[in-house]
């Protein structure tokens, strides 16, 4: 029995963190936030094999596990790295590998880092207002809000029936509008479909669910990394900052805030590991665990985002320190692929406590 990361997984984590320390510094993220692109970061991660992680070996990938993907997601969250990781490296390979069709070429391009796949799932997870996705024949109509990755080459779209389709970003019927959100570390787009050619990937709801589950666990892991980084910054600041002739971290009012953050966050690490492990090894527990992990991490991160900012006092509120990038990353992760209240409802339905 060994509950934790293997030596290889620790090595993977250290390698990715080392790369991101050098290539996804706060200054680099600011450049992206100001309108720059993330191509060099993604190219560097591709050299380390990140987009190939979940692509099966037969299709030119590395064929690792969801837990390995969660480990990388945690590193990306800690560094608030702008990358197309969630859609391209996590959700798309999971969908394509489960599809009946032949996607060898596309999977090989994903693995090589030369093809980015975005994701538009919002309308199948929890449709808002007039957004809807409809496929008639082989053509897609309607509108998706907040699809992620503004620079994708193609999009994996789920319609209201939870069927999965692939569309090309270059399709003349597709209108892609970048809309501003608070999270400047990643860009989302609104997609409008006017008879866009839609390639069916799967009509099996189970495939949709598997793709959603792994996406949620990856978001939870990203949140874990971001929240841990905020806690670390708060602790470091409280040790350095002096008021009343002593470090503010020696005041119980401040140190207890840090202890509460640590006490809530530490079990989250084990939860993310287990959720990643369950996706591959414990199918009976995987779905409920993915729901609870996404929702619980969202709640803990909301507390940490607020509290760690408060520990920084006025500086936490400034752009100078830049803590707000992590704050907003956690906020976006909370809403993407299902807000906590809706996900907990799903967890209750999955356990048969209540009908949908």
């Amino acid at each position: 029995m060994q509950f934790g990361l293997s030596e290889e997984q620790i090595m993977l984590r250290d390698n990715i963190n080392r790369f991101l320390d050098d290539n996804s510094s706060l200054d680099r993220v600011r450049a992206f936030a100001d309108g720059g692109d993330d191509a060099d970061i993604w190219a560097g991660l591709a050299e380390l094999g990140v987009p190939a992680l979940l692509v099966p070996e037969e299709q030119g990938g590395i064929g690792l596990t969801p837990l390995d993907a969660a480990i990388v997601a945690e590193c990306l969250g800690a560094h608030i790295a702008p990358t197309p990781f969630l859609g391209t490296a996590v959700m798309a390979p999971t969908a394509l590998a489960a599809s009946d069709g032949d996607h060898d070429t596309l999977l090989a391009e994903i693995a090589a880092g030369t093809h980015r796949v975005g994701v538009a799932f919002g309308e199948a997870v929890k449709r808002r207002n007039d957004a809807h996705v409809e496929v008639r024949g082989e053509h897609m109509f309607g509108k998706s809000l907040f699809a992620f990755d503004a620079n994708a080459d193609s999009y994996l779209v789920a319609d209201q029936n939870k069927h999965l389709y692939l569309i090309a970003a270059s399709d003349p019927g597709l209108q892609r509008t970048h809309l501003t959100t608070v999270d400047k570390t990643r860009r989302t787009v609104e997609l409008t479909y006017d008879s866009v050619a839609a390639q069916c990937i799967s009509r099996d709801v189970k495939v949709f669910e598997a793709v959603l589950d792994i996406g949620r666990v990856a978001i939870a892991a990203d949140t874990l990394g971001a929240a841990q980084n905020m806690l670390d910054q708060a602790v470091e600041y409280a040790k350095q900052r002096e008021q009343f002739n002593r470090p503010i971290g020696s005041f119980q009012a401040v140190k207890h805030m840090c202890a509460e953050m640590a006490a809530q966050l530490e079990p989250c690490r084990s939860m993310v590991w287990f959720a990643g492990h369950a996706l591959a090894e414990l199918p009976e527990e995987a779905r409920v665990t993915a729901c609870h992990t996404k929702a619980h991490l969202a709640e803990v991160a909301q507390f940490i985002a607020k509290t760690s900012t408060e520990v920084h006092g006025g500086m936490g509120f400034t752009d100078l320190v830049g803590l707000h990038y992590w704050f907003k990353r956690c906020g976006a992760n909370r809403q993407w692929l299902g807000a906590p209240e809706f996900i907990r409802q799903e967890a209750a339905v999955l356990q048969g406590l209540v009908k949908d």
Partner: protein
Amino acid sequence: MDLSFDPEYETFRSEVVSFLASNADKAPKGNDLRGDAAKGWQKLLIENGYTCRTIPKEFGGYGAEPDIIKSRIIAEEFSKARVNAGLGGQGISMLVPTLLEMGTQEQKEQFIQPTIMGEMLWCQGYSEPGAGSDLAALSTAAVLDGDEWVINGQKIWTSTAQIADWIFCLVRSEPDAPKHKGISFLLFDMKTPGIEVRPLVDMTGHANFNETFFTDVRVPKHQIVGERGQGWQVANAILGHERETLAPANTAQTRVNALVDLMKNETADGARLVDNPVYRDRLMKLQGKVMAMRFNELRVLSARLNPGQDPGLARMISKLEGTELRHDIEGLAIDVMGEIGLAYEDNPHLRGSGSWQREYMYYLGLIIGGGTSQIQKNIISERGLGMPREPKFEKAS
């Protein structure tokens, strides 16, 4: 990540299960610490290695090598079968491990066997009215007079003092030494003249604790564990262990499952409580927290089994998070029941034999006892996160 156990352990588990199947009827019911049924059951459990498992044979134990997984399997199966898992109490859980680590050969021979067999019941004399979170400030005085310590002072929160045979007690024996170095760890008979025990009724309506007063209590000089002035180290040898086991996640899981059943069965205006979206969301939140704590404990277990694996802060946070979580779980049950949640003791509307209110209050006690949540936060921030200690006040001149 490997969540499987050696096949040897499945064999062991089936042995425990079959023992329980053929012997459970001999187990005592309820919480009787002194009856013959309890003592007979304890003897049978020790002979089979299901309690006092690692205590050496020469002191009356089973004498097995420590094996965390086997201990866990025993605890799981006894809990699943809802069978009494043997005698507990502070003598067995705290004094015996302390004596094994710090006691003399004579002390081990004199005290361990009668303690684990239930012949000798102990109480713990640590806290005082003026020494709670700051336990090392204790002031109960022990002055050597010839071959005897003469003890004067007061202890508080001494559970089972009214029925205990003996007490293990922290006293100030070196009044001029720094506060942590002036304490000694003494053992003495509760029938010694000069001891008065007064019951302390708590918010549950029961006297779960006592106040214990000492007036010129004379104790033979040799009844000390460790050296004079070493009592703080003796007491701390096992204190951390006590904290970790106060609110285990598997019991929290059992309570959440019971809460789910309650919410499926109870109705308000004819609708099941679980169909109320507000209550249901609160339930799901707690279920998610319990899940996180279960995996946190798996990580702690794994770090004990695999030396070199870093448990991070997983162990340090378990008392704080575990006790607060249990209080919240019991509290939600009371909330969903409305007025019925207020029922207590002999009220015919009682649900779960009154356990929800009882545990709700009991876990508030545990949030405070065994190192308050605030002390836990000091430990987490100072030892876990490396934050600076609170500066000490200069003594007023």
